[in-house]
């Protein structure tokens, strides 16, 4: 499969993860989200931006515990919550949010 934004065609694997993560852009994130039936709100972007900055620093996706802790620290206790993250990304904060954020498929379970 592939996503298209303007002239850019970004190939993805059969689960929808980008083959070339350097192609990621905010517009591409919108396209990925659309194919996941997720409408991106500012709250989604808080998670996506954190995932991207963590990946830029460590070259891996954060552990869910770290995601929860950082969300709590930056945006308040009600957002550092597993249920809240699932309400944003029903197919899992790691798997689905990483896909939209243009990160490689996480090796963990959620």
């Amino acid at each position, binding site marked *: 499969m592939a996503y298209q934004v303007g002239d850019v065609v970004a190939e993805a694997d059969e689960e929808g993860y980008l083959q070339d993560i350097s192609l990621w852009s905010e517009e591409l994130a919108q396209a990925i989200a659309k194919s996941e039936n997720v409408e991106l709100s500012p709250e989604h972007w808080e998670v996506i931006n954190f995932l991207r900055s963590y990946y830029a*620093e*460590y*070259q*891996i996706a*954060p*552990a869910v*515990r*770290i995601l929860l802790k950082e969300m709590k620290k930056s945006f308040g206790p009600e957002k550092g919550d597993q249920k809240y993250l699932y309400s944003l990304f029903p197919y899992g904060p790691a798997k689905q949010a990483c896909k939209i954020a243009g990160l490689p498929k996480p*090796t*963990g*379970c959620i």
Partner: protein
Amino acid sequence: MAEGIKKKLLYVNRKAPYGTIYALEGLEVVLVGAAFEQDVSVAFLDDGVFQLLDGQDTADIGVKNFSRAYKALGDFEVRKVYVERESLAERGLDSADLMQITYEDENDDGAEKPLVRLIDRRELAHIMSEQDVILSF
């Protein structure tokens, strides 16, 4: 995993980071395994000490530089990381050549503390003898 089954697990890294897939696979297994709340230790010896070298640059060999992921070990609740002193010395290295890897100590208001401990060969042998499982990469 059932409650109460907690094993002492040691991951042993003996190979240079690039050229074979062992180092990257070993790191991924540690990070994935961290979710299972076992008593995890990670050791670097022989050429494995090169995995922790500071300032790695893989641009010219066309593979991903994954070295910064070691800095996330603390985030994944790994608290016992050992480097064998003799292996460093035999390669003309010392602790100043290694990356600074820290963890946040929850018992000390999240203070950043060094994660890597330099130990000698005899102490590492003792640690190995105490494990339930040793996985070698």
